[in-house]
Every structure is written in C-alpha cells, then in structure tokens.
C-alpha cells in the first residue's frame, strides 16, 4: 500500500484524537496484515468508493470509547452499548472524513459511505493487492486501532483519463 494513501489517515487520526481527547497520542504497533481482521473492541467500518477503493476500520475498547464520549460531550457519560457504538461511529466519521478531505484535495476522487458497526469478530480479509495496515494509537485513555485496506481503482482512473482526453 502506498504511503501517500496512508499518511493522511495518520495525520488525521493524530490531530482529531488530540483535539477530541485533549492529549497527545503516540503511534505504537504498526503491522501489515493479509489475514482477516480480528476485532479488538467496538469497531466501526467506513467503505470508500472511487479512484481509491477499500475500507477503514476504527476499533477501540468500550472504556476508551466512554472516555472519548465524555470528552466529546464535555461531561461524564454513563456506559451503555448505544453510546459506545455511537461514539466509535462518530470518531471514525471524523478521523476518516478528515483524511478523505485531504486525499480529495490532492486530486483523488472518491466517496465515503456512512460508518457502520463492524460486529463480526472477524472479517474483511486483505488480498494480494489490498494488504491492510494496522496501526495502534496509544492514548492515556487506552489504545485506538486503525485498520486501513485500500487500493487504486485502475479501471476508474483510466475511464476518467479517457473522458478528460476526449
């Protein structure tokens, strides 16, 4: 996977987590995986369609999610399944949305779909041309995982180029 596709997600996650959680983050483990994704806590998946195709998963444990929810609300929040799921979806929406903004402004044309809860314990295997990059952001409130699997959609790019030439 090309670094130019990944870097905006790292920058976005770093900036959004710092702003939302009022703390600095550190990138911990980074690995490339071709095996199916194994969920660690509550996960949200965002699908990407266009010149670039793939999906990004944001994954955090419920306690970290409640801390994020409290920070977003500016007041303590009681732990419930709904709040945890909503928090993870909203955080994914912000992190991935900001990264997508950077990539689109650099000339990559694609769309994101609304975040969806990733409830299966396993799923979303990589393939030969779509390895997944798994990154762990260490925060004082707990670890937050970002799993990115994307590839250039060659056919779509060729179609766009043909239209531009015509």
């Amino acid at each position: 996977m090309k670094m130019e596709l990944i870097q905006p997600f790292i920058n976005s996650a770093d900036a959004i987590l710092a702003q939302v959680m009022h703390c600095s983050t550190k990138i911990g483990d980074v690995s490339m995986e071709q095996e199916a994704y194994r969920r660690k806590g509550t996960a949200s998946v965002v699908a990407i369609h266009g010149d670039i195709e793939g999906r990004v998963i944001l994954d955090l444990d419920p306690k970290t999610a409640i801390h994020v929810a409290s920070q977003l609300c500016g007041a303590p929040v009681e732990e419930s399944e709904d709040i945890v799921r909503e928090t993870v979806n909203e955080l994914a929406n912000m992190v991935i949305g900001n990264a997508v903004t950077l990539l689109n402004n650099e000339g990559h044309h694609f769309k994101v779909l609304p975040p969806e809860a990733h409830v299966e314990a396993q799923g979303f295997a990589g393939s030969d041309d779509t390895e997944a990059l798994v990154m762990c952001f260490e925060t004082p409130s707990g670890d937050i995982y970002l799993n990115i699997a994307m590839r250039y959609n060659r056919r779509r790019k060729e179609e766009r180029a043909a239209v531009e030439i015509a």
Partner: protein
Amino acid sequence: MDQYVPLIRKKDKQPIRFLVVDDSIFARKNLTKMIDVFGGELAGEAGDGCTAITEYNRTLPDIVLMDITMPQMEGIEAVERIVRQHADARIIMVSSVGYQENILAALQKGAKHFVQKPVRPDVLYEIIRYVLGDDAEAAPAVTTLAGEARL
C-alpha cells in the same frame, strides 16, 4: 464551554431556532448542546435528508445545521430540495468530509457556509453570526438585583 452572547431575532426578539440534521444521534446531541450554550432553541432534529425536508417545512427554522454523508438522502441533495421551496433558507453544512468539490457543490445548491467536524463551538458561533447577518442581534444583558450585568 465558553460563554457566548446569546443571539436573538431582530424582528421579534425571540431566540434563534435551529434544525439539526445528522445521522449520528451523538453528533446531534453535541450540536444541540452547543445551540443551548449559544442561547438558541432546538426547533427539530432529523437523521437523514428526507426527514430534514419534512422537518424544515414543519418547523421553518432560522438556521439548519446539516451533515453531508447520511443514509437515504445525503445532505447536499436535501439542501437543494429545501432551497428550491424556501429560497431564504439558511443552511450551514457540518461534516467531517470537507473537500473542495463537496463544499462547492453544497454552496452551489444553496448552503450558506461550511464547518468541518470536529466542531469547535467558537468557530460555529462565529459562522452562525455571519450567516444570520443583520437579521440577528445580541440579546440585552440581564441585570441582577445586585446590579451586575450578566449574559
């Protein structure tokens, strides 16, 4: 959260009424809280573009805070449909996806402004003031018995 001078409608001195449109309940709650801090009033909520149109017609709010990426009908299409019926609608797009093409499309369909998530209350407040323009004014300060003026 900081304190903000409450804005009221110049014509009848009533609080500014907001319609909040976002598929995330969490995001709606967060925006509603900001509206409360700004001294505004929640006129209605919607979780998708279709409901936003119905709610706009029902509540006729002063300001709409509209997400872009939503199920069923996206925010930009909802803006187009609302503005077609209500040319004076004041719609502020609130989205984490803020690339130029998206912002331009929203503005071309009739949105007045754009704010990127995560929303900073001070930024949203200034944008609301700007979009309301001369139709809003600061609420008069309330004087307490001790003679202290407070917002």
